[in-house]
């Protein structure tokens, strides 16, 4: 358990540095900005107490906000993502429930499970983030296309990170 926590902490730092210094200045096609730091919330253990997840999300959002001068924006998005995580986990739980030490892992849970898990949560995060940023709905469809394109970019990166982070298959 202790080892698992330090792995998560290490990934948090790596992802934050990568997000703040590299990805925040990447604009694919001029406006698509991947947000891969939310991977931190995705790799939290399944049996983690939900309120701890919220606190992790709070500090994660706070750090991002501090560096991008967007007080509250990332925070609201990551909090909502962490809020829906237990519900999403229940929604897509396998018929016999999760095993005691199950981790949200591509290798362990399978591609279809992982895609629904990360896809839904990242979508919730991006939806909130982009609409809070625009703060009005006059560019509704343009913003929606930004959400979708950034979602695709983030998902590709998240899958890459997931493949890196998971234990080699026996």
């Amino acid at each position: 358990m202790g080892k698992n926590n330090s792995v998560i902490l290490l990934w948090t730092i790596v992802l934050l540095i990568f997000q703040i210094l590299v990805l925040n200045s990447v604009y694919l096609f001029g406006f698509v900005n991947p947000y891969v730091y939310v991977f931190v919330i995705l790799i939290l253990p399944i049996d983690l107490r939900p309120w701890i997840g919220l606190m992790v999300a709070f500090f994660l959002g706070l750090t991002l906000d501090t560096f991008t001068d967007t007080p509250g924006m990332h925070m609201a998005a990551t909090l909502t993502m962490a809020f829906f995580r237990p519900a999403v986990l229940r929604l897509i739980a396998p018929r016999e429930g999760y095993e005691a030490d199950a981790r949200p892992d591509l290798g362990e849970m399978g591609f279809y499970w992982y895609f629904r898990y990360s896809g839904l949560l990242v979508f919730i995060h991006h939806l909130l983030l982009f609409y809070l940023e625009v703060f009005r709905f006059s560019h509704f469809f343009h913003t929606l296309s930004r959400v979708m394109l950034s979602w695709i970019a983030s998902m590709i990166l998240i899958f890459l990170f997931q493949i890196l982070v998971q234990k080699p298959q026996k």
Partner: protein
Amino acid sequence: MRNLFQIILRFHFQLLYFVLMIISLLLLMNSNEYHETTWFNSSSFVTGKVYNTWYSVRRYFSLRQENDRLAMENNILKNMLKQNYLKEDSQLLQGSGTVQFSYYPAIVINKSVNRQKNFMTLNIGSLSGVEPEMGVVAPDGVVGIVRDVSPHFSTVIPIINTGSHLSVKIRGKEFFGTISWEGPDYRTARLNEIPFHVPVEIGDIIETSGFSAIFPRGITVGIVNEVSRGTDDYFLDIQIILATDFLKVNHVMVIRNNVRKEQKELEQKTGNG
């Protein structure tokens, strides 16, 4: 009392989410008036330091483009040297002594282009003589106006911020308007307050008017791209392509107007009169 405690215990997750969400939304609301929460500001010490260190790594990768741009600007400046002029003109150029505008070179260490409230951070601050309300230009054209200053850093509101307004004129036509930006594209902006009767053509160059005492006259802002009658009764609907590429802008100059204070004081006196 015990019941209340049990309810809190039972719904602690929802309650915690609710409380934290209110905190973040309050932060969000208060930040609409740009940079009110100064500790969040990237001109604050820690974030500024991080971005500055990162820039020193990153700068090597754009040296070639920067060189090209600076060589181009050099070329333009060389053409303005007084040796190029005939004798009579060069006497004129020497002028009567007061330098109105001086320039400080600076580097953009952080910026955003895909938000409504875009911003930039420069690597020089009050110790280098930067003050709020100074103009910022790049070799290609106008960038924006300094907003906040700390000893080592300063933040800039670029043209591509929904809160920015810039007084401009059409080069060679002496008609004045303002530039504003409503998003979402960082490459274009709107030119407002140009009446119907003005013969604006696609390709007209938009430059600073010099009215606000922030920029000298005649610095390029953009080129007219689209003109239509729009919905307004009096004014044309004009879209311009911005001269500055905000995605790539890196080396900039902060402009100090040495007589701005004098001008402002005099104007205030007249206004109060």
